[in-house]
């Protein structure tokens, strides 16, 4: 590094304001980022924040920088590397054993992700659409037949994504209740650290047992295919495949579920957009509305987490090997350089440049499935229950402000 760049860096860094992360959202719109973090972005697309352990990782808020950095192989997702900006004390003690490829770097990440890729193509996910439509219709039937008000999170949003993943993995119908019970503990907020670990082990044990059954009598599903193609050949152990199944569940359950509830709420608080949605009958328009929900509603509110394994030069800054980094998709998704009037929820805009699914080699593998689920829900729910409305005052709603994934604890609805 030259003397000149050292001085420049020091000047920029001294002038840099550091804010805590995370911080509460402003009152007003429950989807808006904290004002202090917006203020950081106004000073520059790369700043620093202070996290729970007093470390000060880089904080990336610009859209262009988000994409450039997540495409850079100098960024590592390896949670065992020194300097990784863990979400919390609890997640910093993660065990080495059951680490999934979400937390690995290439080439091992690529090797494991590639095994799943054929099961996650857009065409394959589209094949699940009729089944998902039926599931959504049945859940709405049950809601309409039952007592009012209903907690939409419990009656609908938690249930559908877990049933969809059960179908994808190949959980037989006779096990669905068990599977749903096991997964529900994992996403319940009151579950303590020990209970969560137990739940995780129970689920892994269940998946192992299921994989052994699939090895005996394979069917056409993800676990059967991988059991036959990869476990029999010795490329994966049964435990590794169970861990992969677990990753798919963890990555695709609560995220999609929170999105279903928050998106439903987003329309209930915005009559103009709801009217627009109700007037849409072209699936392309509904798909566009889903993209705008993904842009506006911050599900992965704790940002992408990375640690640098090499120095990176960007925007006149030197980001040093060993430093941590938080890349905020929610601020990138509000970058006025890319999205006009970024704070306006407008389901007719072209929002497809959002980075809600991440960017670079770890970009969400399940995105075609998340899209199908959300398109079916938003295309069906309000058409079937046009009088759907909140059953409590907005001020009574409780948000998962400290969750890895942002969402609503409950969403009481009536019609």
């Amino acid at each position, binding site marked *: 590094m030259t003397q000149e760049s050292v001085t420049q860096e020091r000047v920029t860094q001294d002038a840099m304001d550091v804010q805590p992360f995370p911080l509460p959202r402003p009152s007003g719109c429950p989807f808006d980022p904290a004002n202090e973090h917006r203020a950081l972005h106004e000073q520059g697309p790369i700043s620093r924040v202070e996290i729970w352990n007093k470390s000060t990782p880089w904080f990336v808020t610009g859209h262009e920088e988000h994409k450039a950095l997540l495409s850079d192989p100098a960024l590592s997702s390896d949670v065992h590397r020194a300097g990784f900006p863990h979400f919390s004390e609890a997640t910093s003690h993660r065990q080495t054993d059951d680490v999934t490829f979400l937390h690995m770097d290439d080439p091992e990440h690529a090797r494991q*992700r590639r095994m799943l890729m*054929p099961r996650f193509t*857009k065409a394959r996910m589209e094949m699940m659409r009729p089944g998902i439509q039926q599931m959504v219709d049945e859940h709405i039937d049950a809601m309409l037949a039952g007592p009012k008000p209903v907690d939409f999170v419990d009656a609908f949003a938690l249930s559908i994504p877990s049933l969809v993943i059960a179908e994808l993995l190949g959980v037989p119908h006779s096990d669905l209740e068990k599977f749903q019970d096991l997964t529900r503990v994992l996403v319940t907020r009151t579950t303590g650290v020990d209970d969560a670990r137990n739940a995780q082990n129970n689920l892994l044990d269940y998946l192992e047992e299921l994989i052994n059954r699939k090895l005996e009598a394979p069917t056409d599903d993800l676990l059967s295919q991988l059991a036959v193609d990869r476990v029999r050949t010795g490329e994966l152990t049964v435990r590794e495949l169970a861990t992969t199944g677990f990753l798919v569940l963890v990555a695709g359950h609560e995220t999609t579920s929170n999105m279903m509830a928050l998106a439903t709420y987003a329309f209930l608080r915005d009559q103009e957009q709801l009217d627009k949605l109700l007037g849409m009958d072209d699936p392309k328009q509904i798909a566009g509305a889903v993209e705008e929900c993904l842009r506006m509603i911050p599900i992965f509110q704790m940002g992408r987490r990375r640690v640098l394994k090499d120095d990176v030069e960007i925007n006149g800054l030197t980001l040093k090997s060993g430093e941590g980094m938080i890349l905020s998709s929610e601020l990138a998704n509000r970058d006025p350089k890319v999205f006009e009037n970024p704070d306006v929820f407008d389901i007719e805009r072209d929002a497809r440049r959002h980075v809600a*699914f991440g960017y*670079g080699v770890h*970009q969400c593998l399940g*995105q*075609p499935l998340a899209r199908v689920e959300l398109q079916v829900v938003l295309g069906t729910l309000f058409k079937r229950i046009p009088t759907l409305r909140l059953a409590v005052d907005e001020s009574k709603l409780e948000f998962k402000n400290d969750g890895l994934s942002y969402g609503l604890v409950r969403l009481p609805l009536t019609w």
Partner: protein
Amino acid sequence: MKVSICEAKCIGAGVCVDAAEEVFSQRDEDGIAIVLDAEPRAELHAAVREAAVNCPAGVIEIQE
């Protein structure tokens, strides 16, 4: 316009298929993207450029 993909680096997120399904598809066997139409007609150019911008692995090459 000429379109190509670096298959070795494709991560199979299907963003390109979403953007321009006449031009891109994914192979059933491995989920890797393929170019169906390497010289797409003019109406598709905007969608193909959008696919290239949004491809998370940056592997879509366009020559104009």
